[in-house]
């Protein structure tokens, strides 16, 4: 993978990987500042604003705009995530000029018609209602609320019926003005395109955007804090076919010297699919769950180490006790040399599998670019992982895997909880 650092004629820097085996290209782009910048009373604004970019631009109303995308086989998605507004543009090389035309039209001349706004807001509300029916969503909502307390990361990305009702078209316009500019833009181009072609297209896409953004600053989230302590259990009572259990521990920053070691520990504990201790011992050996796993979430302004499992109600107490015991074992005894070696090999080599399509490669590179990595990060990453020793991994396990720090959310009807655990009851969220 040869990542070229490019600067367009109009001064927009981007990364390019030329890949001429299939006549397609992917342009992935992002602006910093996503859901996190929504005012609390207007939660859902970033998602609504990005959705409105697909509702017609210039002379094209929503049907005409989406019809032209479809007729040229252009896939264009723009969505607000926690930290960013992210876009993915994918088309046959032959259709790229049209794809660029339509995308830049959406970014610079969105129509923002009242009818489309009302309809798009209703769609967002409908998807919120569908999400709220999911016990998994309910658990994640409580977990984020508890971990991030008053920080914007506790906000609901899609908003609520109440907050959506307060958002008007002017708010969407203000959002575009503050967020969609050239100084907070990140672009990656992968595919059947020459360097000169790519430069021209990047200029056509983004050259007309304002120079400067005015994205509100987001403070760093500190967890645990006095407002949001660790070590609690929260229980949303619900009669269903199972109990959802989600948990969190403090995480680690992706710039931290412990980052690679933490990834190795995570892989061995619960990130490594069938190879992880959690899947091996809780699923394979005991048949307590279909899926159990963990993931390190390193965000722009805060970090958390999360895990989840779905369990039969009457197995919740046993499974929680067992997993707590496993954390204690990792905390005290650490990993084995074999486990560390296996994790390193997997983490180093499996990345290749994400790079086999132009879209996969573009997304991996954009994620790196957004987290401040250099274009040559692939080699740096490999070296960083290779350098992790058993001793370093064990030191990280000792520091981070503290059974007493675990914050748990249960959604279900377990008949009992592990000895000594008292749960704080919370309500099923329905608005």
């Amino acid at each position: 993978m040869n990542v070229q650092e490019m600067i367009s004629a109009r001064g927009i820097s981007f990364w390019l990987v030329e890949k001429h085996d299939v006549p397609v290209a992917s342009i992935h782009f992002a602006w910093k500042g996503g859901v996190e910048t929504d005012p609390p009373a207007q939660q859902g604004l970033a998602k609504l604003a990005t959705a409105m970019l697909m509702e017609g631009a210039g002379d094209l109303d929503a049907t005409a705009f989406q019809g032209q995308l479809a007729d040229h086989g252009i896939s264009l998605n723009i969505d607000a995530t926690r930290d960013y507004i992210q876009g993915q543009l994918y088309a046959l090389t032959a259709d790229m000029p049209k794809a660029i035309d339509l995308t830049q039209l959406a970014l610079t001349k969105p129509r923002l018609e009242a009818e489309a706004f009302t309809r798009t807001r209703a769609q967002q509300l409908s998807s919120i209602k569908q999400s709220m029916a999911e016990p998994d969503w309910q658990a994640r909502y409580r977990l984020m609320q508890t971990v991030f307390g008053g920080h914007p990361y506790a906000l609901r990305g899609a908003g609520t019926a109440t907050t959506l009702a307060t958002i008007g078209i002017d708010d969407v316009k203000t959002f575009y003005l503050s967020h969609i500019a050239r100084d907070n833009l990140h672009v990656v181009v992968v595919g059947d395109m020459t360097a000169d072609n790519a430069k021209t297209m990047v200029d056509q896409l983004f050259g007309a955007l304002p120079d400067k953004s005015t994205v509100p600053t987001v403070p760093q989230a500190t967890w645990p804090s006095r407002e949001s302590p660790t070590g609690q259990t929260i229980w949303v009572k619900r009669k269903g076919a199972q109990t959802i259990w989600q948990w969190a521990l403090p995480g680690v920053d992706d710039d931290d010297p412990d980052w690679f070691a933490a990834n190795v520990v995570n892989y061995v504990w619960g990130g490594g699919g069938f190879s992880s201790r959690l899947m091996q011992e809780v699923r394979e050996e005991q048949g307590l769950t279909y899926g159990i796993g963990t993931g390190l979430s390193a965000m722009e302004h805060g970090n958390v180490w999360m895990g989840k499992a779905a369990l039969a109600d009457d197995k919740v107490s046993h499974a929680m006790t067992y997993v707590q015991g496993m954390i204690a074992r990792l905390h005290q005894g650490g990993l084995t040399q074999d486990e560390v070696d296996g994790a390193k090999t997997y983490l180093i080599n499996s990345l290749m599998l994400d790079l086999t399509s132009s879209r996969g490669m573009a997304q991996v590179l954009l994620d790196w670019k957004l987290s401040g990595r250099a274009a040559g990060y692939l080699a740096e990453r490999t070296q960083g992982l290779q350098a992790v020793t058993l001793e370093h991994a064990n030191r990280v396990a000792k520091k981070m895997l503290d059974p007493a720090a675990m914050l748990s959310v249960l959604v279900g009807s377990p008949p009992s909880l592990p000895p000594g655990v008292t749960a704080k009851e919370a309500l099923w969220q329905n608005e």
Partner: protein
Amino acid sequence: MTIAVTNTHASVFNPHVTTLDNGLTVIVVPSASGPVVSHMLWYKVGAADERDGETGLAHYLEHLMFKSTKTLKAGEFSKVVAALGGEDNAFTSYDYTAYFQQIASAELPRMMTMEAGRMNDLLLKDDEVLTERDVVLRERALRTDDDPAARLGETVQASLFVHHPYGRPVIGWGHEVEKLSVQQARDFYRRWYGPNNAVLVVSGDVTPDAVVALAQNTYGKIPTFQAPARVRAADPVLTADRRVVVKDKDVQQPQWQRHYRVTPWRDDKEHSYAMEVLGEYLNNPAGPLVDQLVRQQKVMVDIAADYDGRNLDDGTFSFTFVPADNITMHAAEDAFEKLLADLAQKGVAAADVTAAIQRLQRNAVFARDSLMAPGYAFGLALTTGRTVADVEQWPARIGAVTPDQVNAALRQLVANPSFVTGELLPASLSPTVH
């Protein structure tokens, strides 16, 4: 601008196809995807091949294929793959069960040795088999029992196929899954798993000769067996109204669906290709359903259409919508039926048919930007009665569909009495009464 996908790519993947002496079909698609390979083995057996009373057995066996063999311990298969930096998994449907790994191409021989091993050497030990049954029951709880929309989908399917085994859930009915025995798993494995009932697809950084030689050395050593014929009961034409309703306390957003049972590809291929074009036309976000019902009449929040003909037996054509907030399900359903009837009467314009065809044909190029696409395309085709040529000629077949055929397909769909309507409702709402 017109695009000549049909002319520039008369074929899609240009595969290399071999059949080993023992009957295993080997398909190789070299591609420039980096130093990696996708290794996929498909068996021509799925949930629709289970006997009465043993629903869920095909999927259960899929799980058990990761247990002890003569050379591997339980769970070791996936561990070896991961330790080499690869990914592996498996999936089961009505007509097939497939196993795959994506991994550095240098590790292909190891993958073939292990996959060929479990084709013939699975031990199915009592304790491992029974523990995994609990896992499958947990999977059912997660996917279906605890999800009102999935429970509705399962009941719609069971009501649409009242006699053919497509009416059963792939994961099985809970009361039967919990009683599946070690002996049933062994019998199913012996009855269906063997080289002449399987299709191997290898794509990525490989050469056909090397793959065939490796296959010969691994899979090639497994003897041919007598694979059973896939005989399934056919459904009657039912003309009674069938409406299924799930009401649930957790549901806030009502949803509606209608599934039609349609002629299998096998029985009328041209009709099936026309249905594929019709599905693309109707599901287009700029097409008549979304434009009229969502944007103009505002009776729905969203609507989607889907034709699924990729089966050995009957296909399905389905519609799903979410009614607008202030609109009753009844009114939204009426608006949908009226629009579909109007479309059938007026006919789809030739230009719309051409546009839908070109949208579909582009997918043949996009498919080459994916390591696993050849595996999915050929595996699915060859386990559902199709040939390699059916995959390679797909763009041309789609290109040959005429507006008359699309309109005939639409009229036939509107007049088709074999359908089931499903409603997902909050506990407080009453179902639609006509």
